[in-house]
């Protein structure tokens, strides 16, 4: 069902003119006849308009740092924020050294009123000392929550002093929740310090195997990374580090030896990808391991980059075998999924990545969007120079790296690079919008009010988002699939993951539960076509 700009305008007319103007910029109906469709993104959420966005702390500690299993992550602040990031993301990890896996722990300085009044630096220093004494971690991070910056705790100084005391790296992240406009600010803050303090801190000068790569922006939700690594290893790649799913300080510090950086979630990690290229001369490749075709394409692009005959051959062999197996697995589910439509609003890359997989199941994505993306994630990196930096973005410090004199090395000749760039997304991301069909809707920073309206207008068969809007939509009679936590399922990446995803999505359609949502004494159409009028902002 193709949507039109007119319908969009009508829907938005329920807003007040001011809000209408603001929100109109954050959405458009895809129209390939236009040369370019611009979107506004990474700007402030309107107060009181309920969205799914989190804060800088969530992006820094919750997303990027949290999965690093062999570091102790101390949250400096009152206890709540530490609690809320305790085991909530299902980023799995296993460790060869069980004494250095802190994944199931939650550490907080548990600041009290007196700490707010008199400052929390001493307490933080003591907590670091206790953690070192009890757990003897290889490295520690300290993440700040809102009050820390406001009361002027100098966590960098505390960390530095503790580092000297204990002889292990202790890094401070000023990721107070009020920084930036979403968790995106936190990704950037985390990226900067990991780049500055961790990557390159190792002694390796050469990778321990052939075709060494880093996998960036893969957080191993539900075991995704494990499924991807399985295939990569079989083809012959050496995975130097994963940033940061099932990741570790020990791996990360030698990430500089990789010869290619894969970027899965562009939004959360493109800073590091760029800086690695600047500092070490290592290009990055945008990959997408969600869906069979995307996975195949990503594998072929990687092989093209390394351009080794054996690697190319193994790539095709593995693809042939894995794709056949997965296709066989998908078959039974396609029958159930064929002809359905999806609503796909997730994070900063999945809103894009899952569309291909949905399509492979015969499900068309009628609306897609990101919670915390920037314009380039929608429109492609070519718009980056045009992005206006507002005050919120300017407040996030930029890290300016330079070529590492000793380690910098161009992995490809400029000619080869240019040649490859024409074929594969090398150090480039084209964004989500370009792949979407006419009449589909693209929305940035969707809110609850709009969600409801879009659901009624688009009548999708499945709603892919997170827990905060899941129950709204289920109560409207539409099955929902959490694409943040996967509803305790996974992996969904790679060949095997595609089959898991197909199974889980089919469940949502096939479960007899949905047969019972119309009570026998009250027979209503499944959805009220008309927009209800209980309130407009």
């Amino acid at each position, binding site marked *: 069902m193709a949507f039109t700009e007119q319908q969009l305008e009508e829907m938005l007319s329920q807003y007040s003119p001011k*809000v209408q103007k603001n929100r109109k910029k954050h959405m458009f109906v895809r129209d390939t006849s236009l040369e370019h469709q611009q979107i506004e993104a990474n700007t*402030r*959420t*309107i*107060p*009181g*308009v*309920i*969205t799914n*966005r*989190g*804060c800088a*702390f*969530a992006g820094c500690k919750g997303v990027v740092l949290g999965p690093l299993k062999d570091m102790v992550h101390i949250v400096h*602040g*009152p*206890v*709540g*924020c*530490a*609690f*809320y*990031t*305790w085991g*909530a993301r299902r980023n799995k990890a296993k460790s060869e050294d069980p004494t250095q896996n802190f994944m*199931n*722990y*939650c*550490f*907080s*300085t*548990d600041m009290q*009123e007196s700490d*707010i009044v008199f400052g929390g630096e001493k*307490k933080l220093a003591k*907590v670091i000392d*206790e953690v070192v004494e009890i757990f003897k971690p290889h490295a520690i991070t300290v993440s700040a929550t*809102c*009050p820390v910056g*406001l*009361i002027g705790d100098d966590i960098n100084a505390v960390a530095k002093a503790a580092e000297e005391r204990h002889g292990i790296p202790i890094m401070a992240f000023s990721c*107070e*929740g*009020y*920084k930036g406009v*979403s968790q995106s600010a936190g990704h950037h803050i985390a990226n900067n310090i990991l780049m500055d303090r961790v990557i390159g801190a190792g002694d390796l000068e050469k990778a321990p195997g052939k075709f060494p790569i880093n996998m960036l922006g893969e957080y191993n939700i539900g075991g995704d990374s494990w499924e991807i690594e399985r295939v990569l290893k079989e083809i012959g790649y050496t995975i130097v580090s994963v940033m940061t799913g099932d990741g570790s300080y020990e791996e990360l510090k030698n990430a500089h030896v990789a010869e290619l950086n894969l970027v899965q979630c562009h939004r959360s990690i493109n800073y590091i990808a760029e800086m690695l290229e600047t500092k070490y001369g290592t290009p990055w490749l945008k990959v997408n391991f969600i869906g069979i075709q995307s996975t195949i394409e990503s594998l072929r692009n990687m092989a093209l980059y390394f351009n080794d005959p054996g690697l190319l051959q193994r790539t095709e062999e593995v693809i042939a075998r894995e794709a056949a197996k997965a296709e066989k697995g998908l078959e039974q589910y396609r029958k159930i999924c064929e002809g359905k439509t999806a609503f796909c609003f997730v994070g900063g890359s999945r809103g894009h990545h899952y569309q291909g997989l949905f399509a492979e199941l015969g499900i068309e994505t009628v609306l897609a969007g990101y919670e915390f993306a920037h314009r380039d994630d929608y429109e492609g990196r070519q718009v980056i120079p045009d992005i206006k930096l507002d*005050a*919120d973005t300017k407040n996030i410090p930029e890290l300016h790296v330079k070529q590492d004199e000793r380690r910098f090395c161009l992995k490809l000749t400029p000619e080869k690079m240019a040649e490859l760039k024409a074929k594969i997304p090398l150090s480039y991301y084209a964004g989500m919008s370009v792949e979407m069909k006419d009449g589909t809707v693209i929305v940035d920073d969707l809110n609850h009010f709009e969600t409801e309206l879009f659901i009624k207008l688009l009548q999708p068969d499945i709603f892919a988002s997170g827990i*905060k809007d*899941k*129950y*709204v939509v289920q*109560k*409207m009679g539409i099955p929902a699939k959490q694409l943040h936590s996967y509803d305790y399922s996974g992996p969904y990446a790679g060949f095997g993951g595609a089959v898991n995803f197909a199974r889980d999505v089919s469940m949502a359609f096939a479960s007899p539960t949905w047969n019972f949502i119309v009570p026998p004494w009250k027979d*209503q159409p499944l959805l009220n076509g008309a927009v*209800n009028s*209980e*309130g*407009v*902002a």
Partner: protein
Amino acid sequence: MKEECCRNVNENPCNMCMPMGGILPLKGIERSMVILHGSQGCSTYMRRHISEHFSEPIDIGSSSLNEKGTIYGGEKNLRLALDNIRKVYNPQLIGVLTTCLAETIGEDVNRITAEYREQNGLDDLFIVPVSTPGYGGSHAEGYFYTLRAIIAQLAAPAPKHNKINLLLPNLSPADIREIKRLLAVMQVDYTLCPDISDTLDRPFVRPYTKMPEGGTRIADIRAMPGAPATIQMGMTVADDLSPGKYLADTFGVPLYTVPIPLGVENTDRFLAVLSEITGRPVPEALQRERGRLLDCMVDSHKYNFQGRSVIFGEPELVYAVTAVCMENGIFPVAVATGSRPGPLRAVLSQLTRDCPEPVEFLEEADFVQIRTVSRQKKANIAIGHSDGRYLTEREGIPLVRIGFPILDRVGGPRLLSVGYTGTAVFLDRLTNTLLEAKHGSYRRTLYDQYYQAN
């Protein structure tokens, strides 16, 4: 007492923060909304956790303060948030809860909200500003402090009427429905507050509405000062957090403090107070329910006596669960709360005075302390919310889930534990957990030895 008084790190917390606790009672008021005045992350995290426990939509606004707001103040943002929430939800009441950020920068939400209300001529909208910085206490304190603030803001001198005020701690919707049933059987008129039994356990009904049905009616809260009495399930509530005390001190409403009616004695106390206030005896039907509970206790007492419990969670629930354990000989080896020191210590030490071994009592506890003491004192059953799952995973102590949050199982809102009948099914959960562990080890032996035979 704290295991090590000089310890600073909180590893694996047993509590959440103050605004989280403030949200819950606001969700139990008819057509009310909540705005968290602070960074939008606060709202997002809390919505996520509450949603997962209740499997319900949890709409909470945020003033989305950013760096600029930390410098120039958040008044503009808060006003905009109020505007937008009003427009979309058309609530009768908006609770404005502060956060670490708002409090640290010194926002005067009382003034802001009062002016906003006046300037917009909002006579029909109540705005309840509550000071709930994350460092101000645990979610348990935030709960009662907010409930007190709601009542303090709304209650007004009222003619005498016969509806008893019944003020509840954080209970499951199923428990609240059971309490309402008891009140109906006792033929008591009441104003129960907060009432999340419909708002946070919504039926699937068409069409979906943004605001759930149910919740305590605002007119009823307004009239609380005219009530014949207040019953507050709040043995552990400090006076300065106590809404019942507020009504007593301000309007002279007699206050009866009772525990959550979990266990024979606690249910007796609740019904006795109802009896005393109304002059009506406890009807035969409830006496029979009591008799069934006693029968169940007698039938299970031997298995229960082998239990050594560790109990943790919100102070009020911890008190009531401890009472059930004491009644059934599942003597607690440790009772812990993440909350701050308060009346719990005194009432708990009275409650556990006949315990054969001294009970370890932990305030402001984290799960590392709880695990340590559980291991040392050989606890064999844990009772509390689902963050205690590590007690099972790492110490092999089975966990009976009760309270908030329950994130790793479904049905937390449907967990019935209060009243005589509820206590019996709660006790069955405890007894069967002990029996399962007992048979389990026997089974393991069997399995090892005879598996090949089969």
